[in-house]
């Protein structure tokens, strides 16, 4: 790891001003992606701004019909939160399946969302649940937030403070983990609220997380695993590597969607 200046602000305003002072500063939330990246010298920020002591970024609460999760909430907290488990059990289960127990004790929802790794689990949940990302400057709909692999709508000096999830009627997340890395080769989050159905796919595309319009249309007709059969999944821009071809991943999208719908129906 290359040398950097370490900053430990206590307010979001101080974070913003620290970001303004250092060129190439990076925000450190749980560090479970940033630190490995820095150790491999794939990132060499001039300054690391630690969010660990910043007030107002923690906590999980139910606000009206939404579950609001602080950006610094660890995966383990979301996984075990009574509030989340009761309102959106699929989200708690997703958080409980990220990495391993020690990683879940450090990794945060804000960090995962801001990083937008193409194989990360959380982005699929945000898209499929129609979540809103709250920053120090504005509120951003998940559909506008994720803009391709490792790319988001966040601007310079903009910090995620919380994520707000509308409570769905039914939801489930199913992933096919890579047998070695355990990252999702394909992960599918489905949700249903009234007549609206959303299907978000992570792990598969070179463009990062995306909503599968064809699958959504089919499932709006009938929210049933059978509805997925015969729906073509366009894998032309899917990831192809030693773990699986683009076609293989396209097929996985169908299979994971069927499983997720079955799970969402409680079967």
């Amino acid at each position, binding site marked *: *790891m*290359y*040398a*950097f*200046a*370490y900053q*430990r602000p206590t307010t979001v305003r101080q974070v913003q001003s620290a970001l303004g002072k250092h060129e190439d500063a990076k925000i*450190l939330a749980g*560090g*479970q992606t940033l*630190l*490995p990246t*820095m*150790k491999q010298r794939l990132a060499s920020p001039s300054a*690391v701004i*630690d969010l*660990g002591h910043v007030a107002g970024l923690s906590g999980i609460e139910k606000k009206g019909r939404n579950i609001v999760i602080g950006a610094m909430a660890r995966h*383990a907290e979301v996984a075990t939160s009574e509030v989340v488990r009761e309102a959106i059990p699929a989200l708690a289960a997703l958080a409980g399946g990220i*990495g*391993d*127990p*020690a*990683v879940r*004790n*450090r990794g945060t929802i804000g960090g995962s969302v801001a990083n937008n790794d193409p194989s990360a689990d959380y982005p699929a949940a945000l898209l499929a649940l129609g979540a809103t990302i709250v920053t120090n400057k504005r509120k951003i709909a998940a559909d506008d937030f994720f803009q391709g692999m490792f790319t988001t709508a966040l601007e310079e000096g903009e910090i995620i403070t919380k994520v707000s999830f509308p409570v769905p009627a039914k939801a489930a997340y199913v992933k096919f983990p890579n047998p070695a890395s*355990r990252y999702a080769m394909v992960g599918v989050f489905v949700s249903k609220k009234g007549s609206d159905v959303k299907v978000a796919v992570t792990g598969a595309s070179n463009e990062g997380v995306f909503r599968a319009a064809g699958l959504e249309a089919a499932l709006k007709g009938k929210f049933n695993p059978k509805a997925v059969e015969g729906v073509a999944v366009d894998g032309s821009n899917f990831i192809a590597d030693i773990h699986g071809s683009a076609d293989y991943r396209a097929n996985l999208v169908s299979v994971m969607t069927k499983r997720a719908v079955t799970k969402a129906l409680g079967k």
Partner: protein
Amino acid sequence: MISVSMTVNGKAVSAKIDPRTLLVQFLRENLLLTGTHVGCDTSQCGACVVHVDGKAIKSCTTLAATCDGASVVTIEGLAHDGVLHPMQEAFRENHGLQCGFCTPGMIMSAIDIVNRKGHDLDEHTIREELEGNICRCTGYHNIVKSVAAGAHAMAGSK
């Protein structure tokens, strides 16, 4: 250089360190607590697991600076007055190790599992929960047995 202060195995420690010092480096090189191991150095293997404020974390993927003010427990902090912690004793009794390299991390993770999931652990739970700890000798069979036995023993030792 920045200053950090924390409690390690019940003792207050402070030092001036380079901000890029990882917690595992701080433990091993500053405090000479070499029981915490560096296996893969990429947060896969779990040989570096320690407890920070009561929770298992990978010390190779944590900056020492972020643990300022925290309470850290390492494998060296488990035995008291020459008596092994019940989980350590269970690993010895059940031959839960061969070369022993992964053992400190296994034991720290195992205690964390008991703290979260209680004393009655089935094999499936233990195997799932040990996802972040890799052993390259034993094939896990005796490790799983050790964790189950240690979990029971910890109930008795309370």
